[in-house]
């Protein structure tokens, strides 16, 4: 039969079902009548003739049913009718249905939200044409901290130019770099997220302008830059979507630039989660480019037919020549050798780059956690539906007796579950939109808002569908299976008061064991993350945290000559120190625990190594409450012309000076551009503090007087201590500086908030795993409650007999609790084993405790026991109060 005919008959089956049915009826009835006619002709009375004809025909309804099955589209038709029937059954039991749907929606929603975040951060391609053939060029294994390193800076600009001119791998290459700078002047000064791009950037990416034009090779010229393009978001918010043709000019990063175009709305820049505001061309400065400043990322489009692997091999071959041509000056022979040994590799760059990918492990773990919560929820649902299947035994028995096939019963119950799963999934997607926003908000900080487009793309839909199908199979199969095996005779005999056999209960007990095991895993995980977070939050970094305000003051717009910079910085510090509320203030070149770092190579006697270096003003140690345990601190007598002195920390002493008295020893730094080799005398030792973050152990650290800094810039970073709120102090200091030096850029941050913001991943894991741990515990409690209640209900008679024979309520409670204890014990053993395996991967995320921490395990087990006890208390009480007379009267 050809397709057209099939479709026609399919359509008639589906849309003219009633017509077809009556036609079939008419045809079969005609058959019987004709046979009756024949029989009547042979001499029988009409009624007898019709009776015999009907008998000869056989089972009339069955014949009709078989005919229907022969029609085209029969399966679709039954599916539809089954779905409608399932919907009717679900509507008949609104309480159970809404509980089931809500549970599923929350479970699926949580899973989807985490997956959406993963999808947005990790899996989604850059919004450019053909992202799959984009590749990034990097140094294999990184540059080991060589030279100066900027965020997302993988290569130097001289290297980029070499690569651009000599590579044979890409059909087009481009470089980009990101930084936060200032736009505007005076009081209108704002930070912007800048994207500096090589001339080919937009062409190679294949982007079309939304308005005006994008940057082109001719824009990459001598500094200063004169043209820029803005992102759609920035154009809308900061430029109010003004027409570019009127000529919009901005002072961006001190250069007057004309905005010539707007990038497409879906182009967020190259960093997922971090939208760029203004894109500027990389310009050629008057002096030669620095060869030790790693500030650009280099990408390209692979030539047709080239794989990333082949490109990597080719770049490795080209590497010696490229690095040879770009050796940075003023470096020791070892550093030069290390530099020349660098090798370039290519990586796929279809998804761009993102600092959020540090959350990778956390997100995958969270996805696992939400998956397990969903599993527990499924076990609860399965138990709920199993109980309901038992209640429906007589209905099912009647349908079986009326000729419904067992496979049809199975399909029918599975269809009800599928319907629940489908509705749950649909609602789950809606919930995920909300949860996803909460998640993004949770990982955003004031200084670093996360801008992610949480789209429901095909990957998310595929994920939701698979999760829904999986949950449906998980919670729907067991009830459907049991219904299918209903013995109509037994079910009808017991008159709807079906009692469960032992095997029935054991299936439910199996579910409870599963729930307990999974809950234990989740509780252990939650406790681990909460304790790890607590360890970090209460960790003493060795310096003052609260009451400290960090100030950043920039005076490059103030027309102050370079030789006055040091003095002006001191004047600014004095302004701040005399602000009301300020107890003390000091300037520094490095804000501790902020992630930034400054290091020099050094030599002490024959010993060589590296140490962190920070230039600070005399009051730094008292402001930060860092004790000086030996020697002296810095004073105003340590000036630019006095002998060079340094303070070192305990770790420094242990590393370099273990045998000798540190005071009076000298150290020599290795030469670097702008930092000539210098000899310092150690005049004091301070206690150990954390350096760039809380997690890493204290490195050797040296402090040098700010006045002796060889290379001061037109800015100052201050640490301000006060006993009033940091916001008040910041406002007062800001006002004071604005009054006296209106050209100075002043920004203030709360030190402690910044430290806590750096623990955002830990906070995320602690709150979310804690939340899901509580949820798992709650679901398990409900699960235990349900099963024990069910058991008590089905064993009422037995309990009644026991009590009639003299058992007291304690014996009865013991009988009930014994069941629970077996399940609990089994669940705990399995769960503890699973937790040992599962938490091994989380070790990297934990601080101050091991993943197999015995205390955590013990606490989680104790908690779970409480949960199980709480869940079985009410049903046990109910069992204890069974009235034997009432219970036995049913028999």
């Amino acid at each position, binding site marked *: *039969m*050809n397709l057209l*005919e099939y479709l026609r*008959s399919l359509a008639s089956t589906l849309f003219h079902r009633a017509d077809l049915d009556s*036609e*079939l009826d*008419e*045809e*079969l009835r*005609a*058959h019987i*009548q*004709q*046979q009756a*006619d024949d029989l009547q002709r042979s001499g029988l009375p009409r009624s007898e003739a019709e009776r015999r004809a009907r008998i*000869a*025909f*056989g*089972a*009339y309804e*069955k*014949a009709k049913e*078989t*005919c229907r*099955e*022969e*029609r*085209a589209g029969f399966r679709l038709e039954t599916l539809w009718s089954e779905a409608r029937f399932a919907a009717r059954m679900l509507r008949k039991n609104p309480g159970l249905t809404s509980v089931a749907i809500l549970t599923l929606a929350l479970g699926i929603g949580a899973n989807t939200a985490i997956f959406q975040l993963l999808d947005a951060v990790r899996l989604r391609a850059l919004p450019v044409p053909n992202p799959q053939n984009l590749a990034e060029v990097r140094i294999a294994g990184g540059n080991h901290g060589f030279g100066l390193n900027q965020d997302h800076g993988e290569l130097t600009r001289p290297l980029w130019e070499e690569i651009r001119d000599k590579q044979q791998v890409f059909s087009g290459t481009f470089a980009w770099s990101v930084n936060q700078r200032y736009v505007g002047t005076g009081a209108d000064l704002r930070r912007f997220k800048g994207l500096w791009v090589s001339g080919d950037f937009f062409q190679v990416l294949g982007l079309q302008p939304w308005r005006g034009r994008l940057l082109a090779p001719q824009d990459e010229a001598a500094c200063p830059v004169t043209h820029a393009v803005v992102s759609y978001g920035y154009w809308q918010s900061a430029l109010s979507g003004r027409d570019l043709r009127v000529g919009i000019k901005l002072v961006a990063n001190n250069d007057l630039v004309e905005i010539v175009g707007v990038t497409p709305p879906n182009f967020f820049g190259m960093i997922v989660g971090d939208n760029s505001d203004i894109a500027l061309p990389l310009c050629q400065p008057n002096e030669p480019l620095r060869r030790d400043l790693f500030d650009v990322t280099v990408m390209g489009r692979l030539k047709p037919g080239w794989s990333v692997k082949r490109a990597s091999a080719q770049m490795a071959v080209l590497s010696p020549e490229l690095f040879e041509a770009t050796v940075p000056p003023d470096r020791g022979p070892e550093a030069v050798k290390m530099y020349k040994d660098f090798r370039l590799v290519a990586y796929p760059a279809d998804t761009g780059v993102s600092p959020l990918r540090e959350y990778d492990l956390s997100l995958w773990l969270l996805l696992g956690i939400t998956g397990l919560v969903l599993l527990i929820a499924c076990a609860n649902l399965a138990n709920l539906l199993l109980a309901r299947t038992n209640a429906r035994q007589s209905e099912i028995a009647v349908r079986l007796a009326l000729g419904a096939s067992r496979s049809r019963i199975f399909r029918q119950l599975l269809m009800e579950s599928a319907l629940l799963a489908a509705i749950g999934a649909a609602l789950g997607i809606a919930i995920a939109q909300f949860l996803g926003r909460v998640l993004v908000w949770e990982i955003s900080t004031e200084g670093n808002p996360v801008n992610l487009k949480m789209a429901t793309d095909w990957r998310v839909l595929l994920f939701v569908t698979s999760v829904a199908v999986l949950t449906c199979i998980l919670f729907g199969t067991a009830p459907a299976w049991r219904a299918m095996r209903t013995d109509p005779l037994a079910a009808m005999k017991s008159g709807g008061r079906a009692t469960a056999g032992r095997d029935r209960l054991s299936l439910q007990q199996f579910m409870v064991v599963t729930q307990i095991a999974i809950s234990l895993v989740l509780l252990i995980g939650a406790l681990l993350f909460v304790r790890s977070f607590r360890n970090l939050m209460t960790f003493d970094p060795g310096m003052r945290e609260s009451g400290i305000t960090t100030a950043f003051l920039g005076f490059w717009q103030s027309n102050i000559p370079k030789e006055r910079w040091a003095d002006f910085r001191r004047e600014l510090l004095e302004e701040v120190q005399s602000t009301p509320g300020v107890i003390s203030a000091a300037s520094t070149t490095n804000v501790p625990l902020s992630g930034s770092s400054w290091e020099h190579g050094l030599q002490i006697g024959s010993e060589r190594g590296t140490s962190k270096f920070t230039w600070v003003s005399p009051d730094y140690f008292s402001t930060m409450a860092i004790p000086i345990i030996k020697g002296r601190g810095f004073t105003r007598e340590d000036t630019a012309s006095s002998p060079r002195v340094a303070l070192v920390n305990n770790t420094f002493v242990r590393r370099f000076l273990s045998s000798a008295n540190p005071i009076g020893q000298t150290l020599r730094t290795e030469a670097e551009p702008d930092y000539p080799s210098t000899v310092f005398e150690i005049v004091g030792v301070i206690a150990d503090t954390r350096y760039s973050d809380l997690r890493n152990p204290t490195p050797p650290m040296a402090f040098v007087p700010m006045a002796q800094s060889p290379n001061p810039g037109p800015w100052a970073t201050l640490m301000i201590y006060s006993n009033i709120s940091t916001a008040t102090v910041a406002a007062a200091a800001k006002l004071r500086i604005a009054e006296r030096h209106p050209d100075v850029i002043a920004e203030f941050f709360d030190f402690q908030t910044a430290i806590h913001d750096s623990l955002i991943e830990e906070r995320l894991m602690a709150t979310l795993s804690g939340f899901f741990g509580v949820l798992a515990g709650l679901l398990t409690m409900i699960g235990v409650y349900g099963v024990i209640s069910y058991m008590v209900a089905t064993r009422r008679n037995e309990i009644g007999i026991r009590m009639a024979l003299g058992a007291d309520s304690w014996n009865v409670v013991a009988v009930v609790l014994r069941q629970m204890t077996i399940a609990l014990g089994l669940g705990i053993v399995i769960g503890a084993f699973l937790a040992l395996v599962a938490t091994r991967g989380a070790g990297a995320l934990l601080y101050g405790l091991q993943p197999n921490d015995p205390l955590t395990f013990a606490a989680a087990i104790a908690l779970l026991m409480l949960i199980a006890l709480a869940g079985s208390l009410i049903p046990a009480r109910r069992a204890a109060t069974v009235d034997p007379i009432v219970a036995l009267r049913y028999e």
Partner: protein
Amino acid sequence: MSTQAELLPGTLDLLILKAVSLGSLHGYGILLRIEQISRGALLIEQGALYPALFRLVRQGLLQASWGTSDNNRRAKYYELTSAGRKRLREEQDGWNRLVTAMGSALGAKPEEA
């Protein structure tokens, strides 16, 4: 009943096609025709006839239309389509080959083996 043979699976369709090839018939007529041409040797379960008719219509081997029977009853008449006629020829050939082969196989004497 010993004189009546059970139908082999799949042979009902062939019998229906054959019966209808002799002229358009309604369901009851097909039943009678098969009894008649098999001289009452083949027993057809009446309820099984209609699903087979539906199947053959769906396969495009038969086409059906409503008409009036000899004793003035409305009935659905079936007739062969060209595809049905072709199928009947093929099935008939196949059946004959099978019967010949089975006959010679079952009629074999010990010395021919």
